[in-house]
């Protein structure tokens, strides 16, 4: 249960206090600020290596190669107006790779000589107006295929990440002096793209072909700066996207920016009949720590741009102004600023249903003055709603924020002279239902059930946290493959069927996983201080009396003998490919039997809302007509209801389950 201020607890236990349903909409999809890109330029140019950056004055610097040894640079001070057609010659007789970065007043442009091994740079300390003459940075061990640069600090410390035909390397500049390149020990069949940005380490995004398997792959990696990875040390390589060697699919042109989180673009080129070359966007959940594990970036979202060298990302991290996606022939821009709208004064009804693996409901807004015609930003499908339930208290209005909701549909209702905008809402499980895997994901033998579930939720834009998961969830490493097109919901269901744990949505687009235990302490008591309006207490058989797990040449079972003695008690069976001993198969059967016991329906109670109530809380109530002692049950579902008219309603139905 969410912790409540004492004044709110007191208020919700009084039948006479004024209810409060506070609703705010904001431009956030899952956990990510929504960026609505607007095209500023589409002037045709040769598509070759390119990059873009934004220094502190808000100007946009673009650099590009023409693929024939000529480099061009452009600085636009007022991007809303351009001009975009004017490029400055920046070098001739050079290599065909180029990149840039900015921080504060500095802009650096990195490129190679004609041989491809001599890495050169020119730098500006006046926002890209004037640049130094060309200077040597370092010499690569082989011709550079792609490179990327990121500043660490306004003083000029930075690093250039680059790939040669089959090696990944990075070279840092500290206090104005370039060091020697550090080559990763990781081996590759071939490499074609790299992007680097700096958060607390150097964060790398790499595309190429995996050694041995020859799978086309998009990886993440880290070069440590002493945060998540030790200083000047390479981190692990993690696969984020992968295609078979004979799939005719390849990845290239990664770009990355660390703004509110790691935002990344890359190109997927499909050479099979009917395939297309297209840029995709992906990101890491803002709560996810770096280094992100394999398959934790969100399922890629297609962008309507088909250039072979992708879209560079540029934004001034210190200024929540605009973010740019650029290519030689394209400039898109989106405001980064949060857009929020407080809807509380117009909320006339709300009904939210929280269930095991489902959230639904609606918020109705008074539209009697047509104030929601349009509707106004940020009220639109996909955006987040912050919904808080509370009362007027001795400390004023106090509320408790429920799990994040998102707008699933909009419905204007005009009847009897009334005008209402109904916002249909959904929760985290519904995001998982829509998240279908673009590729088959085979989990490694070291991934626990919790780790598998964390990645399933992460790809849907949700972050899984532990609220006390079972030892089994944390330690058993199943054979688990998620086929292409399977939804995150189905995959999570499959994994959870082997555990007694439950997952409930939470705030900041997160999900909390916990193991309900019979020994769980009561979180709240009804019927004494807190009024109890209705009780329907139900007792029924557990949903299974026996569970059988069939492993690999192993069998395990769990039996509830008391239930099994009752005629008709059902038996569940499970195929358990992860178990090869009787003991592990028995553990699977035991976990499933516990899971099914929790499914038993124990009735419901109707109360004035307990504003902090959450799914799977243990609650208690007393009713002498039912039992001489306190009755303790687990919350298996919550209905929240609020209406101003025709009859004022403010109540909560708690669906109960077994402890």
């Amino acid at each position, binding site marked *: 249960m969410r912790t409540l201020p004492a004044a709110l607890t007191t208020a919700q236990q009084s039948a006479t206090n004024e209810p409060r349903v506070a609703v705010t909409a904001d431009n956030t999809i899952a956990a990510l600020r929504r960026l609505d890109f607007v095209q500023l330029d589409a002037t045709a140019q040769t598509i070759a290596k390119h990059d873009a950056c934004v220094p502190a004055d808000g100007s946009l610097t673009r650099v590009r190669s023409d693929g024939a040894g000529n480099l061009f640079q452009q600085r636009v001070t007022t991007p809303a107006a351009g001009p975009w057609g004017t490029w400055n010659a920046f070098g001739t007789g050079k290599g065909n790779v180029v990149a840039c970065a900015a921080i504060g007043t500095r802009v650096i442009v990195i490129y190679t000589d004609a041989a491809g091994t001599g890495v050169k740079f020119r730098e500006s300390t006046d926002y890209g107006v004037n640049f130094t003459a060309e200077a040597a940075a370092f010499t690569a061990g082989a011709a550079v295929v792609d490179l990327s640069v990121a500043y660490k600090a306004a003083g000029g410390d930075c690093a250039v990440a680059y790939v040669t035909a089959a090696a990944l390397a990075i070279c840092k500049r500290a206090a104005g002096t370039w060091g020697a390149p550090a080559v990763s020990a990781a081996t590759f069949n071939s490499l074609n793209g790299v992007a680097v940005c700096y958060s607390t380490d150097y964060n790398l995004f790499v595309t190429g072909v995996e050694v041995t398997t020859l799978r086309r792959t998009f990886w993440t990696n880290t070069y440590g700066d002493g945060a998540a990875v030790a200083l000047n040390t390479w981190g692990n390589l993690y696969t984020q996207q992968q295609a078979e060697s004979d799939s005719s699919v390849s990845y290239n042109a990664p770009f990355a920016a660390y703004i509110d989180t790691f935002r990344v673009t890359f190109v997927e080129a499909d050479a099979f009949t009917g395939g297309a070359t297209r840029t995709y966007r992906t990101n890491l959940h803002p709560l996810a720590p770096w280094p992100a594990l394999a398959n934790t970036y969100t399922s890629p979202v297609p962008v309507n741009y088909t250039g072979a060298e992708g879209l560079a990302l540029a934004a001034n991290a210190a200024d929540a102004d605009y973010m740019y996606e650029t290519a030689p022939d394209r400039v898109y821009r989106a405001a980064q600023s949060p857009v929020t709208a407080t809807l509380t004064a117009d909320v006339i009804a709300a009904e939210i249903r929280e269930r095991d693996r489902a959230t639904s409901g609606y918020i109705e807004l008074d539209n009697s003055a047509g104030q929601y015609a349009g509707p106004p930003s940020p009220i639109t499908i996909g955006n987040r709603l912050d919904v808080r339930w509370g009362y007027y208290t001795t400390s004023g209005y106090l509320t408790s924020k429920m799990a994040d909701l998102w707008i699933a549909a909009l419905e204007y209702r005009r009847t009897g002279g009334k005008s209402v905008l109904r916002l249909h809402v959904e929760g985290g499980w519904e995001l998982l239902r829509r998240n279908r895997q673009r590729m*088959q994901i085979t989990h490694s033998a070291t991934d626990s059930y919790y780790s598998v579930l964390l990645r399933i939720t992460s790809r849907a834009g949700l972050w899984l946290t532990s609220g006390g998961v079972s030892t089994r969830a944390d330690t058993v490493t199943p054979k688990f493959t998620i086929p292409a097109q*399977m939804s995150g919901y189905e995959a999570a269901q*499959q994994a959870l069927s082997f555990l007694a744990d439950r997952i409930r949505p939470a705030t900041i687009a997160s999900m909390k996983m916990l193991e309900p235990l019979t020994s769980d302490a009561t979180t709240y008591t009804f019927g004494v201080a807190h009024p109890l309006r209705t009780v329907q207490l139900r007792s029924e058989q557990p949903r299974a009396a026996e569970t059988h797990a069939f492993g690999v040449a192993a069998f395990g079972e769990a039996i509830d003998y008391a239930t099994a003695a009752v005629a008709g008690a059902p038996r569940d069976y499970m195929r358990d490919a992860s178990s090869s001993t009787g003991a592990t198969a028995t553990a699977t059967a035991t976990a499933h039997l516990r899971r099914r016991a929790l499914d038993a329906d124990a009735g419901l109670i109707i109360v004035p809302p307990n504003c902090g109530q959450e799914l799977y809380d243990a609650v208690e109530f007393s009713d002498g007509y039912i039992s001489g002692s306190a009755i303790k049950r687990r919350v298996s579902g919550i209905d929240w209801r609020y209406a101003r008219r025709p009859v004022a309603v403010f109540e909560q139905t708690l669906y109960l389950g077994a402890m």
Partner: protein
Amino acid sequence: MPDTSTPPATMRHGILKVWYSGTYLADVQLVGSLTTWLKSIPVARDIASAEMTAGRSVLVAMLDDTNPADAAVIAVWV
């Protein structure tokens, strides 16, 4: 409805990518998967080896969607 036990088997349409006649295993691209294949799926022994030509359609019975080793190619056509 809460989950009960092992989900029912599913049938999936696939494209045969690689045939390993010695072990009677096959790599199969499930329709809907553009980038990754199921590797080394057992093939019903009543299917003649000569019929297993790359590019043909196959029917894959998946006893457990999350464990490709628990699947079998049970028909081939076209």
